[in-house]
């Protein structure tokens, strides 16, 4: 290992081996997991860790955080910077690994059996300079939601390209408005100036063949004709098939319009599926999901890789137990429970073929095709500067959507800003 052997690491690995071998607790420890998990995720957490607690005799407490990821990130940064010992495990967003890598324990050795079972792209997103910073516990990828009933009513096919989507949305919107639904819109997505816009815009750019903003080798690729075309297409939706207020939309606003039956298409994460199928939903049973469209035939669809991981703090005073818990939380047993209880997409490939999951959460196998097109945001090449890169990117896109400056000008400006930010190296 290039990073050198840490004696503490060895000890902890050895300790886990001992625990596993004798299968009984030596000393009960209390492990704190801080997590931005919400709602039922949070309620089911005790059930998910129960088997581990029973096996090791340790106790797990969860520290909930506000659901805003930037609040979470701010707190974690500060706690880690001060070497806070109160938290043992951190649940981390897929894009945080490079920014927080210094404070987490390398899990390569502890999770060596788990790594090959996972999708390689996810493992790679959590690896920084050869160090496995966090273990994936579930993944997330957005899809195109469409109204089956309306597509049938207006005799349109499920759109494969963005142009087809535009045409279909226009047709349905005109028809529905003529029929009296004045608030009906063709397509809703997330256009507010925040991380979600980076996700949306990355999908447009990538599916038009315009690269990934910053490529894996660190080259800034965002200013190219295909990316310009992608943003121009998106800017054309605002005010025509998408509401003017779209540049204020996050996930919930889009879902609000969709779930009250006022949109034909929506780009959203899997969470909207179960909610849209709820008893009080106006679209219950009337919709389906597919992969997001492409720029032109021959391009490949893109869905931004989301998802959450678990990392062990370097400052934890219960490292052995913490590492063992991390491995358990990322393991097949816990992931399967999460898939069944929470409809969270597993990161372990074999679970997509699991009959029990297919039966209890049928959308998970469906989502595999969406997930296979997942693209990572450029957090790996840009390292600690990712948040700033993303902020500059979403600002440029937001300006374009709001009609302040052309796509070409804004992207040229963005390229200059990013070059400046990059300096000699990321």
């Amino acid at each position, binding site marked *: 290992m290039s990073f050198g052997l840490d004696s503490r690491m060895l000890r902890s690995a050895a300790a886990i081996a001992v625990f596993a071998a004798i299968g009984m607790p030596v000393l009960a420890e209390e492990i704190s997991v801080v997590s931005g998990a919400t709602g039922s995720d949070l309620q089911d957490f005790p059930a998910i860790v129960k088997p581990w607690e029973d096996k090791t005799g340790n106790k797990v407490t969860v520290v909930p955080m506000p659901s805003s990821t930037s609040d979470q990130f701010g707190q974690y940064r500060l706690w880690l910077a001060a070497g806070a010992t109160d938290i043992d495990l951190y649940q981390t967003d897929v894009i945080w690994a490079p920014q927080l890598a210094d404070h987490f324990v390398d899990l390569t050795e502890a999770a060596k059996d788990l790594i090959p079972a996972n999708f390689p792209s996810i493992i790679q997103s959590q690896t920084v300079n050869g160090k496995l910073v966090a273990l994936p516990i579930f993944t997330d990828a957005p899809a195109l939601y469409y109204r089956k009933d309306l597509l049938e009513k207006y005799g349109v096919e499920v759109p494969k390209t963005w142009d087809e989507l535009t045409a279909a949305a226009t047709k349905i919107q005109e028809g529905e408005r003529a029929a009296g639904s004045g608030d009906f819109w063709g397509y809703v997505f997330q256009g507010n100036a925040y991380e979600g816009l980076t996700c949306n815009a990355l999908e447009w750019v990538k599916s038009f063949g315009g690269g990934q903003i910053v490529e894996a080798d660190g080259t800034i690729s965002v200013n190219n004709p295909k990316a310009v075309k992608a943003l121009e297409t998106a800017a054309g939706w605002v005010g025509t098939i998408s509401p003017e207020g779209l540049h204020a939309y996050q996930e919930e606003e889009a879902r609000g*319009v969709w779930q009250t039956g006022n949109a034909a298409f929506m780009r959203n994460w899997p969470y909207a599926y179960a909610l849209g199928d709820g008893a009080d939903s106006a679209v219950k049973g009337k919709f389906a999901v597919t992969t997001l469209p492409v720029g032109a035939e021959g391009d490949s669809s893109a869905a931004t890789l989301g998802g959450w991981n678990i990392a062990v703090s370097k400052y934890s005073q219960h490292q052995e137990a913490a590492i063992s818990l991390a491995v358990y939380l990322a393991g097949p047993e816990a992931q399967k429970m999460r898939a069944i209880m929470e409809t969270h997409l597993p990161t372990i490939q074999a679970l997509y073929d699991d009959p029990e999951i297919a039966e209890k959460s049928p959308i998970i196998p469906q989502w595999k095709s969406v997930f296979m097109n997942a693209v990572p945001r450029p957090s790996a090449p840009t390292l600690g500067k990712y948040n700033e890169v993303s902020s500059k990117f979403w600002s440029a896109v937001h300006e374009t959507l709001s009609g302040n400056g052309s796509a070409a000008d804004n992207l040229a400006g963005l390229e200059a800003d990013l070059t400046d930010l990059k300096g000699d190296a990321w």
Partner: protein
Amino acid sequence: MTASTTAIGRESGRSLQQQRRNAAILFLAPMLIALFCVAAWPLLRTVWFSLTDTSLNNLYGGRFIGFDNYLRVQTLSNGTVRYKGTLVDPAWWNAVWNTVRFSVVSVVCETILGLIVALVLNAEFKGRGFVRAAILIPWAIPTIVSAKMWAWMLNDQYGIINDILLHLGIISSKIAWTANTDTAMYAVLMVDIWKTTPFMALLCLAGLQMVPRDIYEAAKIDGINPVKVFFRITLPLIRPALMVAVIFRMLDALRIFDLIYVLTPNSAATKTMSVISRENLIEFDKFAYGSAQSTLLFAILAIFVSLYIWLGKVDLSGEAG
């Protein structure tokens, strides 16, 4: 007050003075220690960080780099000179401008509205107690709650503000208040004015109640126009109270953070100095740079207060009186 002590015998007076001074030191010490710990020391740390290249990943490993975070002159290999640092950062100056604009507009509106409300409350009428209680409600609601409440009401699709305005025929289509760059600042101002006018009204009311009633009676008998009474008599009398109220509000407005952080966190149109320094301190990997911005924010406040006290001849310490 000193005259009073001399009234007591001179000899005992001296030892008494001494005793009182000692007691004063004893009484002041706990407060000074508390303030040093929670305020002075952290601020000094921030000033120090701003002169280093500290990163949040390595809080104790920063090197001293002088004023580079504020202004750095770089000569590139091709001979061009580049300026970097907060003082030439357009994002920072945008934030300064936003903050100043926000503070001036909000404090002016709050002062005017606060005065009107205070004048109303100063009049005798049925249900005054109820009204006084009602106007204090916005002020009692936690900022984070009121920000969320207004975010909900300002929502473009199912927010009630758009609904009301549409029904009244004031707007023709739904407005995305918080996201639209043209309206984001209005949205923030609206919420802030709603939230802090009660406080302003309270301070104005306190000032108004010190104005002797007989002045109004006399003016009424003389048949002087009430508007004239207000500008000629009331306003000059409550001016000192008003000046103090304005400076407290102004200080709050210049530091505004949580309202904007919840309502419009990423909009460049509303990003204020506090918001941008948090972004650099924590969100971006620019801890030292953010510290420099915090330090500048403090410096700007200090300069502003000094100018205000000096130009407005505000007697804050009451020493003159």
